[in-house]
């Protein structure tokens, strides 16, 4: 087994080790690197620029959803509706553009806004009533799912105009083909890493997640903040909707059905605590990549997809275990 090698090296230099350990992304990052090394050895095709850009392209939709999911989980909430909201946004964009003949950009804007409205509804219900986020978003999952199927008349929308699929196109970079959409996803991750880490809004989100009551006592307007998080998450799902139609080239009413759980998986693998207040979007990005690398690598090795599900399940349980144990450690 080659796995322990990096740590024997680290142990020889305690300072480096400590630096590494104070970064919450460290654990997931190590897992990602080890998995990549394993697949690079195991298959001829894994270690190529083309394959790397393929993985980025494959994770861009769930990755973008996972950004919104991270925001909500940081407030100690959870969003079960993200995949269904995205599906509604995508079918709205596709049908407005294809069946109603609206200008593509207007169709995209309306789709984005619709997703934002779902976020607003979630946020208001969570705060104004108030109701547990799990229940609110479970309800909204069904509402969005049903609306998608009613509005789409169960029909797949084909023949999308160019602007709707533009983000699915690629440009050559060295000997790889990078998809424009994956650049959007990476930019979103960087943008939200900045927003969470270096703006008042971001710091307030962490404060809210750690303790809603103490956040309120320090003068943060928690109701308004919570609603803003859900609205921003909804708009991010709208971007995911655009990425989805551009990636598959069709509007698909069946889309997104397991993406809510996939996005939660990515957030958890990225080291964000399900109890709120701890975690980073960059960790989520690593989490998303872990899932993408495993799915791609196992497929390249010819391993059947049930094993991918098995591996993902084991990783999630281990990641939550790490979170729990390290919480005990800090108390």
């Amino acid at each position: 087994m080659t796995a322990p090698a990096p740590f024997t090296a680290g142990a020889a230099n305690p300072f480096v080790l400590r630096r590494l350990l104070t970064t919450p992304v460290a654990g997931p990052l190590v897992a990602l690197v080890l998995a990549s090394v394993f697949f690079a050895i195991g298959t001829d095709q894994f270690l190529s620029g083309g394959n790397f850009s393929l993985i980025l392209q494959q994770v861009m939709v769930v990755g973008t959803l996972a950004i919104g999911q991270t925001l909500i989980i940081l407030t100690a909430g959870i969003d079960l509706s993200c995949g269904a909201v995205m599906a509604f946004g995508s079918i709205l964009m596709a049908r407005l553009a294809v069946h109603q003949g609206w200008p593509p950009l207007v169709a995209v804007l309306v789709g984005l806004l619709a997703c934002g409205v779902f976020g607003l509804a979630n946020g208001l219900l969570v705060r104004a009533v108030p109701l547990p986020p799990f229940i609110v978003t479970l309800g909204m999952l069904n509402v969005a799912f049903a609306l998608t199927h009613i509005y789409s008349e169960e029909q797949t929308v084909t023949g999308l105009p160019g602007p709707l699929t533009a983000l699915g196109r690629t440009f050559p970079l060295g000997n790889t083909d990078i998809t424009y959409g994956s650049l959007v996803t990476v930019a979103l991750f960087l943008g939200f890493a900045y927003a969470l880490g270096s703006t008042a809004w971001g710091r307030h989100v962490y404060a809210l997640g750690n303790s809603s009551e103490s956040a309120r006592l320090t003068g943060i307007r928690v109701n308004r903040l919570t609603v803003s998080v859900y609205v921003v998450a909804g708009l991010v799902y709208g971007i995911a909707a655009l990425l989805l139609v551009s990636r598959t080239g069709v509007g698909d009413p069946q889309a997104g059905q397991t993406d809510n759980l996939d996005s939660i998986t990515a957030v958890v693998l990225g080291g964000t605590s399900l109890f709120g207040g701890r975690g980073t979007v960059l960790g989520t990005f690593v989490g998303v990549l872990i899932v993408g690398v495993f799915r791609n690598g196992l497929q390249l090795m010819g391993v059947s997809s049930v094993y991918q599900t098995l591996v993902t399940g084991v990783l999630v349980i281990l990641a939550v275990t790490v979170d729990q144990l390290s919480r005990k450690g800090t108390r």
Partner: protein
Amino acid sequence: MLPRTRPVLAVAIACLALSTTACGSGSGGDSSSGKAKVGLITKTDTNPYFVKMRQGAEQAAKSAHVDLSTAAGKFDGDNAGQVTALENMVASGVKGVLITPNDSKAIVPAIAKARAKGVLVIALDTPPEPENAADALFATDNVKAGELIGAYAKTAMTGKTAKIATLDLAPGISVGVQRHDGFAKGFGIGSTDPSIVCSQDTGGDQAKGQTAMENCLQKAPDINLVYAINEPAALGAYTALKAKGREKDVMIVAIDGGCTGVQAVKDGKIAATSQQYPLKMASDGVKAIAQYAKGGKKASGYTDTGVQLITDKPQTGVEAKDTGFGLKNCWG
């Protein structure tokens, strides 16, 4: 506590992940063997129909000396999962891919990309829309499967006024539409004829089939003929009928020919079923790709993998085989 826990667990994560993949790699191909690679993408992993399909592909791969890798959507209707699997297979250098599309239209752009890279794409069981989006189609003629049980039911109902319940698949899915229309055609009526007094979607699921039948009986208690998209839906209908004491005077016909379904025909729960052959679809598909890999030409067009009426109560003028034959050739 904290500084120690994290690295230990990270290593544990990685080791476990590595050992799991090592366990799994036996079921797939060895990338360094130099054999041609063939991919199979089914609708889901768990449905016995697709399990049989995978077995057929594995047997054929062994005898044709090609490497088979398999993948599936997460649920019936999961297009994105199939797109990802197809991309990964193309990246792994497959010669050809067999695919059972979850969404006939939505999969088309992904198939086009794979074909543009020289990969032979054969649709199994379910045609893409348009059908020529894939190189070839190996499938049951679903219209004919419906016609067979329609014609059987027509003869068996001679002298009675039919009150029909149709337990369908789901809106917009071509297999379900073709079977329903085929049944109506075989029965000699239009697909929305007034003698069809109740139509419900079941998703091909037994529990939903039962609920659908219960609702149909509420709506029209005098139903005397049930068409079911597949045998699980038919068995659900049987349960609902039995609860009302109606199982003897209502005839159920179905399509698929799974082993549980054929057994139900033998037990007299279902009058007749149209049997299809997923194993043959897959093994013929793998052979076609193996041939292409050896420098042969690409398979093209539609290959009918056959359908057979199975019943123990044959009607004169309707050709059928008994459940002995059905059980010998069933899947699941």
